[in-house]
Every structure is written in C-alpha cells, then in structure tokens.
C-alpha cells in the first residue's frame, strides 16, 4: 500500500495529508517475528505499516501470549505511545513487513500546528479502542467457530478497504499459532475450526490466501457487523463530531 493511501485512510485530505505524509520519510523493513517496539518501551518514532502484517501482543511470564490487535497495511502503529510516551504492548511483525516512520516529536508538533491531523489520529485511536472491545466480546462470549469466522470477515473487510482484496480473495499469511494467539484458543482447536469452515463450504485457505466462498453465511456464523471498523466512507468533519459525541470524546456543548 502506498503511504499516500495510508494517510488518506486516516481521513486526512489535501495539504494536511501531504504535510503529514512528508514526515514519514524513512522506511524500515522488519523480518518475520521481528520486534518493532517492546512492551513498555519508549519509541522515538510513529510508524505506519506499509506492507505486511503485524500484531500488538502481550506476553505472560510463562511464555503464553495474547494478541491484542492485528495490524494490516495502512494501519498506524504506536498511537498509544504518541499520547502516553510508551507502548502498552509489544508490536511485532507477523510477516516480512515494511513500516514508514516519522519522529514522534515532529508528529506531536504538527498536531499542535494542524488540528485536523490531531483529530484524525484521535479518531484512529478511538477506532482501535472499539476494535479491541469487539475482540473482547469475542474472547468472552463467542464460540471458537464464531471467533474464527468473525476474524476472517474482519480481515477481508479491512483488506478490501485498503484496496488489497480482489473480490473475495485476500492475503492471509497467519499461521495456526498466530490465530490461536489472536483467538485465545489452542492450535489444535483452531486447526479443527479451520477445517470445519472449509467443510461447510464457507472458506478456502491455503498458501497464505483466504477465499470467502459464502460471505453471507460466514458473516452470520461470526455475527460480524462491520460498523465498528468505521472505514468507509472516509469521515467528514460532521461525522467526526457525531462519532466523538457518541463515544463521549467531545464536549456536547
């Protein structure tokens, strides 16, 4: 994905988009499993994932880990650190990945100078929070089958929004272990659920590609509603205010 498209997916237009994009002059390539930022670390950079898949992850003392967010091309990373100064979770590449990076101090200065950029990043942070809520609902209340169906719908929807899906086919380079860490399940259970989705004619999965064969049924199986992703259409200012009011992020007065 181009950096320009990634910046516009934040809802930035014209000069704001161009100025914001100009800060991301450097690129860094990450090997599969390479750490971008560690849990609790202070990073001098804000990153946008340009290519590949990554995750926000927390690791327990005994090595078990829980994926907290899946990052796809176009996603802004390190948003928590931008506000709080340090990362709440580690960010790790799930595949070979490329990130564009801007100095955090430069981004913070630009937010002061151009409020629309601050608003766009605020919105992205809020959407990330809502996506985390959706995952929490899944972990707490959905069955394994529902969780996996929901995740596949989410990935397809986000890849389409990023222009990286062809009809019902998109890259899906996640291993069974990755899926297990995202869904809070054992690999054996994930393996069985993948085979069940295949057997029921809902998906095809192989060689790092996902094909959704029956989207209405998969959507129903996962209880998926795309509203929480808030991807399209790109928000106008009025929509932003409605959004901020709805989630108590702005003063109603």
């Amino acid at each position, binding site marked *: 994905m181009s950096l320009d498209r990634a910046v516009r997916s934040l809802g930035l237009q014209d000069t704001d988009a161009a100025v914001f994009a100009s800060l991301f002059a450097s690129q860094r390539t990450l090997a599969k499993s390479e750490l971008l930022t560690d849990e609790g670390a202070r990073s001098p950079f804000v990153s946008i994932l340009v290519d590949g898949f990554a995750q926000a992850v927390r690791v327990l003392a005994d090595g078990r880990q829980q994926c907290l967010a899946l990052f796809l091309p176009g996603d802004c990373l390190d948003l928590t650190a931008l506000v709080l100064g340090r990362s709440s979770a580690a960010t790790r590449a799930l595949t070979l990945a490329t990130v564009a990076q801007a100095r955090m101090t430069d981004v913070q200065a630009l937010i002061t100078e151009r409020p629309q950029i601050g608003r766009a990043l605020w919105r992205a942070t809020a959407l990330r929070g809502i996506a985390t809520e959706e995952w929490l609902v899944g972990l707490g209340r959905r*069955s*394994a*089958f529902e969780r996996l169906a929901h995740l596949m719908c989410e990935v397809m929807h986000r890849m389409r929004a990023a222009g990286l899906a062809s009809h019902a086919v998109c890259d899906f380079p996640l291993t*069974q272990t990755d899926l297990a860490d995202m869904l809070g*399940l*054992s*690999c*054996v*259970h994930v*393996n*069985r659920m*993948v*085979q069940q989705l295949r057997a029921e004619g809902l998906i095809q999965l192989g060689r790092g590609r996902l094909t959704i064969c029956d989207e209405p049924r998969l959507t129903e199986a996962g209880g998926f509603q795309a509203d929480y992703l808030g991807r399209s259409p790109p928000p106008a200012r009025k929509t932003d205010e409605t959004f901020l009011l709805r989630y108590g992020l702005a003063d109603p007065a």
Partner: protein
Amino acid sequence: MRLFYFDMVSPTRRDRDEVGILYPSVDDAYLEAHRAAVEISRDLLLRSGGGDPNIYRFEIFDRDRNLVLEVPFREVLNPGAGARVRPMEGVMESLHRNLARSRALKAELAVQLAEARRCAGSMSNRLAKAAAG
C-alpha cells in the same frame, strides 16, 4: 519440530486432520490436545444440542500416519476417574493392535497353507493311481 495430525473421533464419526501442526515433541502435542479437549468440551456443553463431550477422543498420528497416542475426552474431563493416558500407552496400544492383527493373518495363512498342501497331496495320489492304472 515434528508434524502431528489430530483426528477427532467419536463412535460414529472420524474428523480426519489433513493439515497437521508442528510441535517440538510428543509431550507438547499431548498437552495441546489436552487443552483443545477442554475448549471443545466447553463449546459443546454451552451449545444447545451440542452433545456429550465424553464420547470423543483425539487420535494423534505422526508424519507417516502412525498412531502415536490417544487422548479420550472423558479422561481429560474426569482426571480422577482413572489413570491418565501417557504417550507410551498410546504406542503400546498401537503395537498390541498390530500384533493381534499379525497373529490373525498368520493363523489365516497357516489354514490356507494346510488346505493347499492337502489339495496337492490329493492330486499327487490321484496322478499316481492314474499312472499305475
């Protein structure tokens, strides 16, 4: 890392694992099967009409589809009810099954060989009589 296949088996059905998962050892495969049995049982019990999880078991095979061990759900769900399945028990069960099958085949072959000998002897006698007559 070694490849293991996890078939889920009930008295009426076998869900064959065609993909497999890599684990460092049989013990790791056993522990994951144990965890999966708990998770699947939970889903079955919470789902209306999900059925009794005690009827299922995992059969774990190696890369060449040799049975390595079995993990009956009932022993995971009722750990105090009997001895826990250990990997070697699965191997021994597999060996015993193959040994019994080999003995049965050997016995069948012995019967067929005796019958062939009897037929050959009978034909030989008839040929001798025919030559003398």
